[in-house]
């Protein structure tokens, strides 16, 4: 019989609202209190869905737990609670469902490491067959489950334009199995399988495997990137994605203190530096074309992003490896040019109160 992780409580959209404790001082959420309710972020909404509850086993400072909560709460609100999630094997699955407990307050299934997009397709097909087009489907996983072992299923789901939003929480390595290299691990990074010893310092410089761009090449309705440094932006993009039918993809950078060798209170700052350095471009694409980018507000050299992370410590030990840092800087500069991250042109936009107002105008 099934390993059934116990029945979760009903999420609060269909029951009594769970009152939000406004302890998030210094965040957008507390600022949201000053707004009318319809302008507030999902997280500051007194009737927020709370897709994943506290008590899960994520590490302190886990970017993935943060990203998943914001993304799924926004999706639950957009779907009016009618949401089913298929989760790939990985940290998120392991830390949220230690039998007989579950942190998920929503219909949730875990099948395998490499098949979450296909499982999501199956759920969507079942809902269509039953005429339940009100029920929306999300597939999600880490970078290993998405860009490596699950990539075939992901591409197939894109190609068929199945009605699934897939969210990748990218912490740039196989963190659940002990920090091994994945197809999303950046060049030069130290992992358990790319030690900075021998001739090559850390992970090799390859051609990269940019799944957001690969998703765009499938010309699916909506592709976006986001980080946990800009949670309103993440909420906004999930909400936007839910307005479309068909295959959609959101790639969220979620720092991992354990795997990156960074302080647990640095996850959000590192996510911001990844974006502000140009190493992680934040953008939206509709129908295969970039429609907006989040411009760099305060450009920083990549070194500022790399230094706080022990996975890059070998680049700065002793005489350092300035030529490697230069190559990484060149990578960031290429992103800046390619996406116009410093242009601040008409397309680019800042996500702030004005965005909240724009959302309200669209009735979101």
């Amino acid at each position: 019989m099934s390993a059934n992780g116990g029945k979760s409580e009903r999420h609060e959209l269909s029951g009594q609202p769970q009152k939000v404790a406004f302890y998030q001082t210094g965040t957008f959420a507390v600022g949201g209190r000053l707004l009318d309710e319809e302008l507030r972020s999902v997280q500051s909404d007194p009737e927020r869905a709370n897709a994943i509850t506290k008590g899960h086993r994520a590490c302190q400072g886990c970017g993935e737990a943060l990203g998943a909560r914001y993304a799924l709460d926004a999706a639950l609100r957009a779907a009016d609670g009618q949401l089913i999630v298929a989760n790939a094997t990985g940290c998120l699955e392991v830390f949220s469902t230690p039998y007989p407990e579950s942190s998920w307050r929503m219909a949730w299934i875990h099948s395998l490491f490499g098949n979450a997009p296909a499982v999501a397709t199956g759920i969507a097909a079942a809902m269509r067959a039953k005429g339940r087009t009100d029920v929306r489907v999300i597939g999600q996983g880490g970078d290993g489950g998405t860009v490596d072992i699950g990539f075939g299923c992901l591409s197939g789901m894109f190609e068929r334009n199945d009605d699934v939003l897939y969210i990748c929480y990218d912490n740039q390595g196989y963190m659940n199995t002990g920090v091994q290299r994945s197809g999303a691990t950046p060049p030069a990074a130290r992992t358990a399988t790319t030690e900075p010893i021998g001739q090559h310092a850390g992970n090799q410089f390859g051609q990269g495997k940019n799944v957001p761009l690969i998703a765009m090449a499938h010309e699916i309705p909506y592709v976006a990137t986001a980080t946990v440094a800009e949670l309103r932006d993440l909420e906004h993009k999930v909400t936007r994605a839910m307005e479309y039918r068909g295959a959609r993809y959101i790639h969220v950078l979620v720092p991992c203190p354990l795997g990156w060798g960074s302080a647990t209170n640095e996850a959000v700052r590192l996510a911001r530096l990844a974006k502000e350095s140009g190493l992680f471009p934040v953008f939206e694409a509709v129908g295969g074309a970039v429609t907006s980018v989040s411009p760099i507000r305060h450009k920083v050299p990549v070194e500022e992003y790399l230094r706080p992370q022990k996975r890059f410590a070998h680049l700065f030990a002793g005489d350092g490896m300035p030529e490697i840092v230069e190559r990484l800087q060149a990578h960031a500069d290429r992103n800046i040019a390619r996406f116009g991250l410093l242009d601040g042109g008409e397309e680019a936009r800042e996500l702030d109160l004005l965005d909240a107002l724009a959302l309200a105008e669209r009735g979101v």
Partner: protein
Amino acid sequence: MPATLRKQVEGSQAMAEAIARCRPEVVCAYPITPQTHIVEAVSRIARAGRLGTCEVINVESEFAALSVSIGSSAAGARTYTATASQGLLFMCEALFNASGLGLPIVMTVANRALGAPINIWNDQSDSMAMRDSGWLQLYAIDNQEAADLHIQAFKIAEELSLPIMVCVDGFVLTHAMEPVEVPEAEAVDAFLPPFAPRQVLDPDDPYTIGAMVGPEAFTEVRYLQHVQQLAALEVIPRVAAEFEAQFGRRAGGLVEPYRSEDAETIVLALGSVNGTLQEVIDEQREQGAAVGSVALKSYRPFPFHAVREALGHAQRVIVLERALAPGIGGVVVADVERALAGLGIPTHTVIAGLGGRAITRRSLREMLAADLGDLHFLDLRTDVIEKELTR
């Protein structure tokens, strides 16, 4: 008798018609010879609008095909898929997952050899290799039974909340023209109730399905899976009896003895070879030989009691296997010997029909006349192997 369509038809078309009458809600498969004609026919039926809102999904691999099936079954949809050979192996990881999650997916396995060397023709190495995957496995003798077993399979799977393979010999059955009666949809509706899932992904009643289970409960979950599979030993013959009562013909069940009550030599075999075997037994009986056969219909779960009852009076038992476990020999024979434990009946394993080599009446006659050892390869071309062995 309910109205039926009896016509000369290719096995794959008959199976597809039977599957369609079971009203699947999601069909998802990836093409592989010799399964293709079944899925093509189901797709055609769906495209013609005969399956209502059924979703037919063409995916990029067998791994995806079964993964989509896992999702749709968990979401409460009656789900069908089909594969063969390398495709079944490519599903392997998802096979264990589907059975562990208790999802009643019905899958046709058009039995085909495994490479290397690559070979598209029939043997049963593929489903035999997946014997421990937690799926029920039924084997059809002919195309009438192949069609009927699919109708039974949905009922068995959904009652037990376990996945099931209907194993049919590739080409020998899938591409053979035979007269087959396919029941009318109304009759199948009367036999097969709508799918009432034991667990379902429902936003209004949300469950966590597929949680991580540690050492404190994993053994218990697996134990319950074992108990559930054993429960099929009661369900499979009951469903076969219900089928016979409603449709007036026998199909399925655990074992099918043929002229074996007073037989001294009994041959046990799976699948279509039983047809040829029964003809040879008729001949031999006319000549006074005390021979009989037993078709094993349910390989998983293995019906130890039924096999012991069917074979326990024999002087010797020949297990005719269409698969080879290199380094061991036969696959099914180990289970047969366990079923016969303590009876002192000698067993002989005969490996036959690998990679599509025809199992002829002449070969079977010779097999019955031969002084068999523990392990015998039927029609082995010794000239070919001796050259290699002496190189």
